């Protein structure tokens, strides 16, 4: 009973703060509304008995939203929301599309005969997950690791301001790197 009440509060709160992300004027407020939405859904995942994944989602979202707040304030023209402004295009069309999508999904959720539950949850779902990704599902873990590493490299390359072509010329034949500030090792 308590679980149902907590879930109801979390579900309504998560959707409401998700809507608030696109309603409030301030970008910082939007970021924290998104953080609230993620935290509430993390609590909903915790209610399912997935203690490890729920805590993982919550911790990751807190850090991610901190980073996002920094980027928001860096890139947005109106980070504090002091002057109300909306930066949207095709609002009516987007509302219609998302409303239709929700109705379709809800109809499918209500109408599909979902399978009955088979078996019972393991006493320690985290142990089951760990054994899975280190055993039968190890390919998933290897791919995830590779993808994360490739993401690190690619994000660094994309975000670098001066790469080797700026420093050594288009044909990389410049003898010494052309840096705005001299000094450093080997120079």
């Amino acid at each position, binding site marked *: 009973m308590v679980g149902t009440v907590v*879930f109801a509060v979390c*579900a309504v709160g*998560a*959707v409401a703060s*998700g*809507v608030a*992300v*696109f309603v409030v004027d301030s970008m910082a407020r*939007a*970021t924290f509304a*998104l953080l609230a*939405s*993620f935290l509430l*859904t993390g609590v*909903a*995942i915790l209610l*399912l*008995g*997935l203690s490890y*994944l729920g805590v993982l*989602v919550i911790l*990751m979202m807190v850090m*991610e939203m901190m980073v*996002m707040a920094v980027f928001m304030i860096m*890139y*947005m023209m109106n980070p504090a929301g002091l002057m109300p402004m909306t*930066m*949207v*295009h*095709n609002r009516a069309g*987007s509302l219609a599309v*998302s409303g239709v999508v*929700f109705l379709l*999904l809800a109809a499918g959720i209500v109408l599909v005969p*979902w399978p009955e*539950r*088979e*078996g*019972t*949850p*393991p006493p320690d779902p985290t142990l*089951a*997950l760990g*054994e*899975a990704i280190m055993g039968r*599902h190890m390919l*998933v873990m290897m791919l995830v690791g590779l993808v*994360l590493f490739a*993401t690190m490299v*690619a*994000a*660094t390359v*994309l*975000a670098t*301001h001066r790469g080797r072509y700026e420093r050594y010329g288009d044909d990389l034949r*410049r003898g*010494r790197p*052309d840096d*705005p500030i*001299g000094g450093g090792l080997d120079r």
Partner: protein
Amino acid sequence: MMLETYLLLAAALFSVGLFGALSQQSVVMVMMGLELMVNAVIVAAAALWLYTSPERPDGQVLVLVAVTAMAVEMAMGFAVTTALFRARDVDMVDMAADLADHRGSGGHGGHGGHGDHGGHGDHSGHGGHGNPEHHGGHEDHGDQGDPEDHGGHRGHEGSGNHGHHGDGGER
């Protein structure tokens, strides 16, 4: 019954995220919408795991993959935003519509404040250009670091920005 409730929560989150991703103009806000959609996938996968096949760990692995996808999306999205902003001073999706059929319809008037990022800080390091004797002992910029090179580079970036703003003005 709880399965349907969880899936309805996931559907609502997905729809809200879809609305944001479709309607927002700022790249960062579009990414927020995408994150909400991935979050809906996480909720749905977790609920499906518990209420259909809790004996098998597949649902949990799917949640793990979705969490990873969210992290990758965030990192690559901000990296692309940074690259786009550095190259063309663009932070709205309408101004980056080069691949669309029609002419890009961006052009927001109050956008001038973003210009000339970091340029002066770079130039301040070139104090040694005028008098190479002071740096004669160690490596100086006198032999190859001509200021025209940098001036031309900056000028090219600047003109590119202005040109883009110019042709994006009509709507």
